[in-house]
């Protein structure tokens, strides 16, 4: 049997630990864990911001938060949850599982991978450091010009936002190149594109979206940065600039970004449902092509975020129709997920609960999304709590439910410990109830006209009861996250005894020990069909050889601290730009030198 482990740790590569090994690691699994840990921390910070917002809105005319602080909190909540929580939590799974799914020993560029991680962490810390100066970003997560221009945001607040996002973009682009090449080039023999696990497919499409959309926001941010730092007039009407140009550039990025957030979750759900239904994924090819179609259409719908700007009937109609079209491939996916479970031998374990929760909640978010695609309806809904309800149903009800499902599913593989089922199900029910209590009433108050992003509301408009309910719901949600943390702590205290394949998994990560050895596969697997590990267990493919005999040496990439130093260099360059009028050209020269020094040492050190 494939799981008969013999001697899987050659002496030359005994497990290394200690701080230095984490700072210099190029192991995709350790990098994945660090992505997850830092992203979860940012998720908690973003969650606390949300709770503060809910306390402020619990009653009318409240003055728990000042309007200024409220602006900072909702801006940082949105920015954090998108760029510092959902994206890097997906990156955790990309890192840990793409190489395992395709039967590889690491990603194509292990040091570049470490670089992405460190740039992300430094960018996230930089954004949050703004709180220490009392100058957290306060112009909303989409930083509309000219609200974000120097004239209306004179403080450092939006400088932190522009620079922080620019730095995070570097991390995403570097990771995008890395995973694009990894998936195309490093697949095990026999793993053709149409045999890849669906998670790998959806991750691949996500990387394409990252590669094509992040350059656009990079330019948008450069222009805003020039306006703010060097006095240009790209978005300043008094100099002939057009604030609407920002909206176009931002949403050309921003809408694909929505799919960057949700496609990895589609992948996770497509892995979990077959395993817990004991059936292969229904309509594999349809799933692949609907994913591609969603990504393609995703570049043609950006202006549905801008119906209220008055683009005229032709543009409104075209963007409405394109937006409605996206419902078709998304619907295909939902029916395929249901088809996967249909007639299956369902295993009601925690990952399956969350996967089912995902489907239900995501459908609700999708339906309110189709409502927005109708321009006249959108004019009523835009900038109201109805929109807030909609995107929380897709991003929390969708992405966070799926990422949580992934956590329960993959925890034993990542850490060698199964999470507690009882606490897991408690987590699920609390989250489902808390989530709907928080966000469902927002549909109603939104349609009744409660505007988003306003720090309070007057009494007597009929918003009181719903808002109280939402605040209670938010605390139930927080409690559910607390239950998850208790679950982690409780199981962490127990020894790491999870079996290699606790769920009867379909994909290759379950064919190796939990947690996997540093080199992943003693022998690169031979793939003979979709669901490669099921194929092996069924006897349709040779089982995996687990041990390396004495003297056999698996060559792994060397650890390196240059990626970390290069990441510091990237942040330093941007900070020097931000403070150029204080530090002068010397700061920029020093930062660029540090970056070049690191890159040169990186390029000339032996990789193996």
């Amino acid at each position, binding site marked *: 049997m494939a799981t008969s482990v013999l001697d899987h740790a050659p002496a030359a590569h005994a497990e290394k630990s200690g701080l230095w090994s984490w700072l210099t690691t190029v192991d995709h699994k350790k990098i994945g864990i660090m992505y997850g840990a830092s992203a979860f921390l940012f998720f908690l910070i973003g969650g606390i911001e949300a709770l503060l917002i809910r306390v402020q809105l619990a009653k009318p005319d409240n003055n728990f938060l000042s309007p200024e602080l409220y602006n900072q909190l909702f801006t940082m909540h949105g920015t954090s949850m998108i760029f510092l929580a959902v994206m890097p939590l997906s990156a955790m799974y990309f890192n840990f599982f793409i190489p395992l799914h395709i039967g590889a020993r690491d990603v194509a560029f292990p040091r570049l991978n470490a670089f992405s991680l460190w740039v992300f962490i430094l960018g996230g810390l930089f954004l949050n450091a703004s709180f220490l100066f009392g100058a957290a970003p306060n112009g909303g997560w989409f930083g509309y010009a000219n609200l974000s221009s120097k004239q209306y945001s004179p403080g450092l607040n939006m400088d932190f936002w522009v620079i922080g996002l620019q730095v995070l973009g570097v991390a995403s682009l570097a990771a995008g190149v890395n995973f694009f090449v990894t998936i195309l080039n490093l697949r095990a023999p026999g793993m053709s594109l149409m045999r890849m696990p669906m998670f790998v497919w959806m991750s691949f499409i996500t990387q394409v979206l990252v*590669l094509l*959309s*992040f350059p656009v926001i990079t330019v948008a941010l*450069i222009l805003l940065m020039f306006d703010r730092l*060097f006095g*240009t007039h790209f978005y300043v009407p008094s100099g*002939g600039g057009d604030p609407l140009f920002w909206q176009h550039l931002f949403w050309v990025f921003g809408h694909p970004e929505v799919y960057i957030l949700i496609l990895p979750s589609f992948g996770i759900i497509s892995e979990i449902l077959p395993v817990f239904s004991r059936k292969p994924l229904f309509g594999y090819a349809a799933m692949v092509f609907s994913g591609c179609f969603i990504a393609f259409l995703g570049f043609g719908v950006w202006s549905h975020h801008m119906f209220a700007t008055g683009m005229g009937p032709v543009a409104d109609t075209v963007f409405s129709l394109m937006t409605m079209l996206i419902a078709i491939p998304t619907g295909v996916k939902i029916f395929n997920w249901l088809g996967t479970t249909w007639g299956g031998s369902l295993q009601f374990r925690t990952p399956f609960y969350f996967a089912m929760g995902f489907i239900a909640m995501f459908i609700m978010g999708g339906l309110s999304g189709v409502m927005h695609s109708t321009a006249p309806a959108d004019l009523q809904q835009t900038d109201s709590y109805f929109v807030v309800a909609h995107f929380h149903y897709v991003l929390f009800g969708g992405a966070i439910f799926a990422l949580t499902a992934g956590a329960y599913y993959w925890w034993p593989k990542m850490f060698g410990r199964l999470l507690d089922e009882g606490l897991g199900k408690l987590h699920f029910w609390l989250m489902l109830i808390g989530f709907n209590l928080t966000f469902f009433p927002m549909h109603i108050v939104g349609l009744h006209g409660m505007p988003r992003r306003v720090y309070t509301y007057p009494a007597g408009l009929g918003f009181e009861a719903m808002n109280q309910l939402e605040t209670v719901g938010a605390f139930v949600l927080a409690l559910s996250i607390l239950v998850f943390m208790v679950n982690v702590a409780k199981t962490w205290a127990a020894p790491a005894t999870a079996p290699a394949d606790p769920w009867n998994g379909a994909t290759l990560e379950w064919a190796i020990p939990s947690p996997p050895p540093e080199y992943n596969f003693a022998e690169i697997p031979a793939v003979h069909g979709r669901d490669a590990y099921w194929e092996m267990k069924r006897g349709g493919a040779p089982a995996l050889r687990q041990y390396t005999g004495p003297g056999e*040496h698996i*060559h792994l990439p060397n650890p390196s601290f240059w990626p970390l130093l290069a990441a510091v260099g990237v942040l330093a360059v941007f900070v020097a730009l931000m403070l150029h009028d204080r530090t002068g050209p010397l700061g920029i020269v020093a930062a660029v030198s540090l970056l070049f020094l690191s890159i040169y040492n990186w390029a000339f050190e032996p990789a193996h």
Partner: protein
Amino acid sequence: MAHADAHAMHPETNTGIDNRKLAIWTFIGSECLFFASLISTYLVYKGKSLVGPFPKDIFEIPLVTFGTALLLFSSLFVVLALNGAERGKRGQMLGWLFMTILCGVFFAGMQVYEFTHFVHKGLTLQGNLFGATFFTLTGFHGTHVTLGVVWLATVFIEALRGRVTPEKAINLEIAALYWHFVDVVWIVIFPVVYLMN
């Protein structure tokens, strides 16, 4: 064991394309969107400047045509250098690589001269939208040229030390791919910015 090592260090890829080469192609694909956004910005704001100087007051087509020619020829030169590297012809590689770098340096120098000249004539980042979009677009292209020169010069020094052997010609090839891209972008910028007036 030696064989296993060699296999681990140079695994065959599914596409048959070297990882680094595929990465550069991927990066170039991404960069296309970067320059497309900058060029769009230039076009969106074309003719929207409230005050001068305007393009017709400022451009000197002969100088920039000469720079364009240098950049175009440098793409040919780097192909010849790569051909030398792949066939182990050291002289051919070093000579043409040197010529490539020289063209790159002259182009960057031309741009520095042009920028200084334009500033003297009153075109600045802050003055009007034409200045802002012009300097941003051509400035980012110039930065790419400069980085390309630094990269090619690094390969040149490595080649001088005898480290760019035919088996390692890929090190020159990926730099050359990037260089071609920078060149192609200029082929778009030159007519859009300088000729379409």
